[in-house]
């Protein structure tokens, strides 16, 4: 499970991990059952001198149901996985809960620029705080990000949040997350972007409201702009 090394630091990390666990239980059950049968048959039906193999064409319904019933079961389990997969996907990627804050994420070879909205909570205003390779957000805030790229494809990934979104030049790609744990987590570029791809890393710092306000104050652009 991802949780071995990664905290569930966003509101939907638990949902995604639950889905992964559910799929793991279902498919591994099938996998081991199929393998057990497979190896069982190989051992049981090893050639013995003087013993002929059975002549089964698989057309007799009495024989065929041994394959069709598991087949229907696969269909049922597929539907179960589908329901949960679509539910999680819809929650994480389609729904956009109302924002408490918005940040700009700009990827370029091979670093990240983050635009924080400042005290007014809006991007493209005078109090925006721009940083390189460090994103600051408030714990518990629903944060919308507006991602873009200056050159090639990049992917904005925060594994601790279970968040991943490719960024495409020429478009703004919007998404959201809600950090639920304070701390510092990796932001990784996970789409190959050239020679520096292996070094394209940044941090997200999740702070308490007080810390965040203090950070904004120390980094605010000079008032006389």
């Amino acid at each position, binding site marked *: 499970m*991802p949780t*071995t*090394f*990664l905290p569930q630091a966003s509101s939907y990390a638990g*949902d*995604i991990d639950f889905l992964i666990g559910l*799929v793991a239980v*279902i498919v591994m059950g099938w*996998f081991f059952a*199929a393998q057990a049968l497979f190896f069982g*048959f*190989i051992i049981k*039906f*090893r*050639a013995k001198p003087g013993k*002929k*193999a*059975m*002549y*089964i*064409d*698989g057309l007799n319904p009495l*024989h065929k149901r041994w*394959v069709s019933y*598991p*087949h229907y079961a*696969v269909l049922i389990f*597929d539907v179960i*996985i*589908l329901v*949960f*997969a*679509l539910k*999680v*996907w819809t929650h*994480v*990627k389609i729904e956009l809960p109302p924002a408490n804050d918005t940040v700009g994420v700009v990827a370029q070879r091979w670093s990240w620029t983050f635009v924080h909205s400042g005290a007014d909570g809006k991007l493209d205003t005078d109090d925006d705080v721009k940083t390189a390779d460090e994103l600051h957000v408030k714990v518990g805030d629903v944060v919308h990000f507006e991602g873009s790229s200056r*050159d*090639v494809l990049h*992917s904005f*990934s925060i*594994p601790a949040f*279970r*968040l*991943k*979104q*490719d960024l*495409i*030049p*020429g*478009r703004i790609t919007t998404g959201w997350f809600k950090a639920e744990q304070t701390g510092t987590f*990796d932001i*990784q570029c*996970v789409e*190959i972007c*050239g*020679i520096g*791809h*292996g*070094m394209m890393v940044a941090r997200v710092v999740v702070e308490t409201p007080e810390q965040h306000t203090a950070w904004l104050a120390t980094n605010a652009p000079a008032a006389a702009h």
Partner: protein
Amino acid sequence: MSNAAPTATAPHAHEPGHAPDGHSHDHHDHHAPQSFFQKYLFSTDHKMIAQQYMWTGVAMALIGGFLAYAFRMQLAFPDKWIPGYGYMSSLEYNTAVTNHGTIMIFWFAMPVLIAAFGNLLIPLMIGCDDMVFPRINRLSYQIFLLSAIILISSFFVKGGGFNGAWTAYPPLSANAEYNMAGTGSTLWVLAVALEFVAFLLGGINFITTAMSARAPGMRLWDMPLVVWMIVIASILFMASVGPLIAGAVMLLFDQNFGTFFFNPERGGDPVLWQHLFWFFGHPEVYVVLLPAMGMSGDIIAVFSRKKIFAYKTLLYTVFATGIISFFVWAHHQFIAGIDPRMANIFTVTTLIISVPIAEMCFLFIATLYGGSIRLTVPMLWALSFVAEFLLGGVTGIFLGASGADIYFHDTYFVIAHFHYTFVPIAVIGFFMGFTFWFPKMYGKMLNETLGKIHFWITILGFNMIFIPLFFTGMWGDHRRIYNYSHFPELHRVALQDLRIVATVGLLIMISAQAIFLFNVIKTFRAKQENPGPNPWHSNTLDWSAPSPPPHGNFAELPTVFRGPYEYSHPERESDFWPQNEPPPGSST
């Protein structure tokens, strides 16, 4: 003996000695001396072309394997000197992973699985003397060889080989300013496009030959699985490759002539390439899977002395898989910035495709039931194909379930997953076909003990590479990173240990191939009595031809009386019943 027939007519299966090609009509009686080039580069004999494809593919696999060795060493021991390679820079790392992927899929899996076995098996198994279009066949190999030479030459131009990953997503792949390998990228695209032309020509031949040159008495439902599967694979390939060839041309134009098909600054769209690529890329998985699956089925039937369980149902699942495979491509793009609602549709289709594939696996397992199983080397390979592919299949569900893919996308979990499909397909597939048809191709038997040692060490090495990679992927390792120490969350001893285990697994797997080569060379050099046309007691027509089959294949072209899987028939003493054996009481 007939006169030279026009090249492009179907050989008449019931007309013995009717060779479809001008220069070959005298081969039954005596071999005219041929120069090296005539024999190895300009042959129109399907078996020679099969071997050309096979050995070119194997040579390319050695290059692809060497690249894997180099970058796995870099991952296990970052920035250390790599024996036989030297130090690896991050750009070289990208070049190595890009060309490893490209070579293994396009220059190893494709030529060996489709072209080599397709060429070798289709005429022999349907009982005719050669492909319907032998000269197109020859041209297909020559174009393929040219494409391989172009790809390899791309390593040696200024800037080095292409480094934008085998998926070649623009703008990185389209702009030399970004990938710093302008010439290399152009040669890469050119090589890939030419290679597709080669397989289009091959595909035309496979489909036409199987449809029009079957031996008298052979209905479509009497064709062995592998022939069916190669035909369906060829149809899938031909139907899906068009968009990608168009995309490759656009990419070539973007790279060299200043067009903007994929450049958003002038109204292009980089995501368009992804659609074109994966519209081909997903059916492509089945294009190479099906021939391997077919060989596995045929070999399992022979060595368990069983009829294939519900042969027709099996083929229906293949048809279904083939059709559905055209509607799943965007599952590679869930988080690529496509409309997220689209992901829902592709999640549904992706999970639907698991249904026929699961059925296929059940039918294979059911075929073993009640068998009389002999674990020969080809059988071990065929069984391991099913066992390993199962893991590749079920782990695909994690990725097809869109919600879970948010986390797994572009991690090593994906790498482990598709290597559990592609290694069984390409590597295991090659070994099962090669060891099974070796007596047919060369009239000699490989050493079984060496074969078993080679099998077990290869399988051990393979699992030792990719089981750890499921875990590194689960714990966050993402792809195409030359050194994880730059990422605090991935710079962990436990993860590094797993990366080292995987590399050791690769070293084991690669060194095991020395046993294989030794076995093959030893067998070629040894004096051995010809094991006869049918050492495995198989039913299909290929085993009624002499080993090795002469130009023209059959002394007398066969007639077919029954399906290919009449093993252990209750009314017969013998446990097999060749397709061409006349029914008792008939006068032939």
